[in-house]
């Protein structure tokens, strides 16, 4: 074979490999929609998405309890994780002694990101869940309700999830803070502002959109988390009416029931997958939009 021909073959092979990720994402979307759409078609979008009853044995495939469950757990995780994550990011970018960062904090964050989610789940179900159960047994309003005093529920899930999204938020927010031009900081300090005034009036506003991108990515991560959640939130497919309610997430619905489902029930689980897929695509597009707007 000629040398130039061989070069062309290599190039074509590399091109095919590069297309693979795009190909896979199209396949993922295609298969999930192909399997899940029939249920939407048969019962109507409204009945499936906003339906409040999930009883597959009676052909009731309402997804709303799981959608709400996912939203509550995720919002709870953000309420706890965002302040801690952003403050840690500011600390890393502005205050931390370099040795402390490279020897302790950075490895700690990497390890937090590397701990498998089942381990977070095991930790949560043997520490946080019993503590919440003990507290709720002491509150008369909750102690009588067997559904609210198990410890498994939104609060426990949100606490564990907030730890799991910390690395994402910290890494993205820290990058954003570090990329604020040095002149801004120097200008502010030269005008006599203290370090903290500079941080919260100059640096954080300048890094705002990057920090937002970190929060949105953390949101996506929280929404897609599966294993830790199913070990902690109780998994009742009902509309939650209290922060201590046992809930089920969209991810959990798929993971728990897939093994023993068949026929239309399986298709309904793919319908959950469609909703999750669309949510995630929207959230990640939002994050990309924020980052690109920043880049100009």
């Amino acid at each position, binding site marked *: 074979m000629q*040398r130039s021909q061989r*070069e062309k073959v290599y*190039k074509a*092979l*590399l091109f095919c*490999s*590069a297309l*693979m*990720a*795009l190909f*896979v*994402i*199209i*396949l*993922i979307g295609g*298969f*999930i929609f192909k399997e899940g759409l029939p249920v939407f078609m048969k019962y109507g979008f409204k009945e499936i998405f906003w339906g409040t009853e999930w009883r597959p044995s009676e052909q009731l495939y309402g997804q709303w309890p799981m959608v709400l469950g996912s939203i509550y757990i995720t919002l709870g995780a953000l309420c706890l994780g965002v*302040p*801690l994550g952003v*403050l*840690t990011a*500011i600390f890393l970018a*502005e*205050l931390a002694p370099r040795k402390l960062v490279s020897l302790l*904090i950075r490895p700690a*964050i990497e*390890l*937090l990101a590397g*701990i*498998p*989610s*089942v*381990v977070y789940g*095991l*930790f949560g179900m*043997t520490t946080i869940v019993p503590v919440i159960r003990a507290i709720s047994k002491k509150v008369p309003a909750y102690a009588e309700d067997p559904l609210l005093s198990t410890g498994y529920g939104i609060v426990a899930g949100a606490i564990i999830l907030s*730890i799991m999204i*910390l690395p994402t938020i*910290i890494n993205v927010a820290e990058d954003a803070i570090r990329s604020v031009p040095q002149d801004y900081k120097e200008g502010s300090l030269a005008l006599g502002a*203290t370090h903290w*005034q500079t*941080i*919260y009036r100059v640096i954080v506003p300048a890094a705002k959109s990057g920090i937002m991108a970190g929060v949105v*990515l953390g949101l996506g991560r929280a929404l*897609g*988390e*599966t*294993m830790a959640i199913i*070990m902690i939130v109780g998994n009742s497919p009902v509309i939650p009416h209290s922060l201590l309610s046992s809930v089920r997430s969209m*991810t959990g619905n*798929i*993971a728990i029931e*897939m093994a023993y489902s068949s026929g239309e029930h399986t298709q309904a689980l*793919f319908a959950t*997958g469609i909703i*999750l*897929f669309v949510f995630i*695509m929207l959230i*990640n597009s939002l994050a*990309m939009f924020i980052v690109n707007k920043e880049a100009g």
Partner: protein
Amino acid sequence: MIKPQKTERVAKVVLWTAAMLTVITLVLILGYIFLHGFSKLSWEFLTTEPEAMGAEGGIFSSLVGTIIFTITTIIVAVPVGIAAAVYLCEYTKNGIITKLIRFGTDALAGIPSIVIGLFGFAFFVTLLKPLTGGWSLISGALTGACMILPTLIRTTEEAIKAVPASYREGSYSLGATKWQTISRIILPTAMPGILTGVILGIGRIVGETAALLLTLGGSLFIPTKLTDPASTLSLHLYKVAMEVGAMDVAFGAAAVLILTVLFINISAALIMSLLKKKTIA
């Protein structure tokens, strides 16, 4: 009015507290898992097969499953990932196809593993059943490969971008073709960076559970071929904790998992620091 100096001091305390809280959380989790898991760790625990649905005996079969699953996934994903990164770095002009490819890679990185698992179930387990044997090691590995592909592409791209332009120019000026330059100059120079990416990919795949729940089969037996169902440590941990209620085995498996992740992070960091020393020298 509160003095700025006072606010400054309070703010510093708050920031220090936040960062230390992050570290303390990690220490608490690790400490708790090891406290409960270390007593279970023994050579016997690692090398005996599970009994009574995993409530007794060891974790040998899931250990074997983890190793074979990880190796298969890496063999499938790494060549594609490296080739894709080479194409994106060395061949592309910023056209619409490149933009599409980048969009696909970014989007794939954000897809939750349970959704990739659903796809793996519909495609590898159900549609390709005659080839993959349904729930099996190979179905799981192909699904896992889809998951780590974006990570591999991104880290390899970074490594290739870090190769100085003068290397390329030197190679071309000696009359080497593009492919020769890539295969003999660029890839060898970028290898430590690529290796770090592969190790991080292994870290991600070892802890993965949700996608495997739908594709790997979760068998308690040692797989003898790629079309056999299997289990991994993390999958086994989930089953014994949630379905069997054998917490001691779960903690033992968790301790092994964390030690594995620690080992992976440390080796990645070592390679990175070696790489830095080399570039400075």
